[in-house]
């Protein structure tokens, strides 16, 4: 009796341990015939999944992992195939890395033949999903070009017009941008929330990848101009010291924010406490829906979007099938619906305002589109035009990290703790430290 009891106890405990190891749910399918598993880093797939479930009468299991942990969590699962999803998304920051791996099914093959879709998408979006040999590994339904979102009422008051065309004209050069900044400052407003906002525009007309094919760090004069522009913004006091993603940044979108200016300035203004209002934000398509609309109440309807000195894009979600999945057919159905199903995409775009990359649908809806939040402006047409100007060849797998290191170096120069030369040298050192294989320029 004693023996039986102890054995069963031990096996029970042991089983618990093993079950614990396996806890991530069904592996790549197999166990549950009609459940499609999807991993992503945002909740934007939730609604499409409801539609898909209804259409196909299947279960879909969506696992959302925060972006910071997403690559780290996904990689071992894909490597081992244990508990891997059937479909998973990739973000711009790591897509270059991932298309080169065998994790995503090659969609150029039969029965997918994704190559045939080439002309149906905005070029850069389609190109980003290809590996270096030209095979399509992932597709995307959206495009994420950026613009400058500004407050109509302030524009009307200070610049005499709130028309996106006219403002865009004035914003079309860096000098123009600074001119507008000065005018705004004289009227008590700030051009940008912080110096980081100009990073998108300092590349100017000469965008180059951070790392070229010889594995050398490419630092152009235009890149380095970011140091000077950021410093100029600070020195001329054109920003509101509200760094991106900080509470102050969000608060500044909905009206005036407190501003501890220091005694020197306070005496000038002879007010107890100073408040300041920000005019514009450099944000991409998704910034409208997931930043502005979700954080703004008072100023809703008072916005418009226009171009900056040069086109840019920021972020984006791509979608592909796990190469080891045993439900590839169903997985492809989902990818198909999400990326080139006219009926679904049209509903989706009209409902969410997401700017699509699939031209057969955008052609149908772009002329009619308008957004109340933007005072009725047709942002769709604007963003589609911007998207056509984007070149995917400047994206490298290092971008996110090198951008961060570069931004920090610029910040240190702006704060005055390092000279420009020191800051650049430190940037080179940090890049060499992070990626010993990359050759940095001679100092």
């Amino acid at each position: 009796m004693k023996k039986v009891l102890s054995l069963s106890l031990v096996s029970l405990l042991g089983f618990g341990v093993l079950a614990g190891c396996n806890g991530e749910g069904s592996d790549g399918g197999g166990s549950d015939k009609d459940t499609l598993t999807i991993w992503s880093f945002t909740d934007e797939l939730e609604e499409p999944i409801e539609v898909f479930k209804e259409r196909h009468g299947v279960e879909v299991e969506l696992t959302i992992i925060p972006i910071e942990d997403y690559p780290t969590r996904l990689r071992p699962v894909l490597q081992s195939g244990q508990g891997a999803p059937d479909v998973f998304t990739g973000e711009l920051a790591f897509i270059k890395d991932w298309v080169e791996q065998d994790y995503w099914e090659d969609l150029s093959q039969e029965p997918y033949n994704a190559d045939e879709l080439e002309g149906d998408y905005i070029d850069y979006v389609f190109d980003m999903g290809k590996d270096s040999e030209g095979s399509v590994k992932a597709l995307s339904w959206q495009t994420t070009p950026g613009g400058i979102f500004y407050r109509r009422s302030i524009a009307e008051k200070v610049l005499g017009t709130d028309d996106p065309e006219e403002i865009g004209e004035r914003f079309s050069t860096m000098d123009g941008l600074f001119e507008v900044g000065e005018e705004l400052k004289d009227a008590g407003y700030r051009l940008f929330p912080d110096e980081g906002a100009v990073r998108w525009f300092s590349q100017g007309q000469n965008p180059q990848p951070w790392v070229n094919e010889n594995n050398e760090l490419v630092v152009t004069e235009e890149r380095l101009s970011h140091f000077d522009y950021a410093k100029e913004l600070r020195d001329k006091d054109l920003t509101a010291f509200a760094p991106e993603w900080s509470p102050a940044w969000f608060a500044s979108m909905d009206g005036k924010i407190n501003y501890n200016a220091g005694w020197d300035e306070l005496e000038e203004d002879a007010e107890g406490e100073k408040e300041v209002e920000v005019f514009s934000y450099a944000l991409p398509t998704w910034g409208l829906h997931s930043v502005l609309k979700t954080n703004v109440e008072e100023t809703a309807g008072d916005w418009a979007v226009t171009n900056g000195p040069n086109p840019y894009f920021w972020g984006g979600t791509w979608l592909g099938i796990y190469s080891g999945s045993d439900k590839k057919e169903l997985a492809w159905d989902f990818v198909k619906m999400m990326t080139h199903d006219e009926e679904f995409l049209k509903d989706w775009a009209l409902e969410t305002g997401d700017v699509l990359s699939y031209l057969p649908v955008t052609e149908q809806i772009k002329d009619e589109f308008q957004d109340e939040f933007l005072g009725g402006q047709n942002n769709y047409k604007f963003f589609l035009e911007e998207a056509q100007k984007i070149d995917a060849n400047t994206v490298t797998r290092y971008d996110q990290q090198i951008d961060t290191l570069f931004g920090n170096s610029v910040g240190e120069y702006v704060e005055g703790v390092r000279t420009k030369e020191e800051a650049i040298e430190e940037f080179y050192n940090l890049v060499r430290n992070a990626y010993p294989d990359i050759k940095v320029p001679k100092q």
Partner: protein
Amino acid sequence: MKKLDNYGYMFIIPFFIVFVTFTIYPILLTFYYSFTSYSGMGDPEFTGLANYTRLLTDSYFYSALYNTLYIWGINFFFQLGIALLLAILFSDIRLKMRGLNIFRALFYLPNLITIASVALLFSILLGWHHGTINHLLLDLGIISSPIDWLNDPTTARWSVGLIGAWMWFGHTFIILMAGISGISKDYFEAALIDGANRWQTLVKVTLPLLKPIMLYVLITSLIGGLQIFDLPMLITDGTGAPQGSLNTIVLYLYNQAFRYDNYGYAAAIAYGLFVITVIFSIITFKSMYRNNVKEG
């Protein structure tokens, strides 16, 4: 003849399965990775001692060690100082402080807040042009222009050290209180009868008898402090800015592994940290032990 059976082993098997799977195996695997160049994808490539030679000459590693010790030093000094002061006040038989349970809970409270909330709270409080603390200091006329607390190496390190002290003094306080209540009342009463004043009681009775507990606090805090990661990570968004002054060893390790995909080098940093922890623990233990012997 004694009857031996193996039932006992069966009962401890589950523990060993967990221990081997989740502790021993990763430790050994990390050791293996530390001799390879591994990007997280594909297969590790054996590179011999390359990671360790790099580690020994890596100025970022040494500055990370300096930052870590700097932050830990501030943290520990204030954490132990505040906790000791409070423990002495609350255990004083002449003062007879009331409400120990309530205060104990209050002191411990910061430790219960998730670190993410703490980081967010303090980045709002310590903000530059919009921060509450600068607002207050400006209004009181103590400073004439706002201080960018988290953007200056010195104030940033002090801020993180003090936040840590605020979070952990309650924990240390409870341990010290337990240590003090473990000291027999007879000693205090004898000291009282012998005419010892408060200071003499503290220095001659309480502190010497509290030494083992303080050694425990020191070593656990040192081991924890060398691994400080969460606050710098959350406050600086992982960058270790300003000027790398909040780049602690574990943050450096994390960035090498999960940002830059240098898993091999990160594994070597982990072993470097292990060696440093062992060295510091031995030094602390030895010096404390030697003092004890001298007094004894």
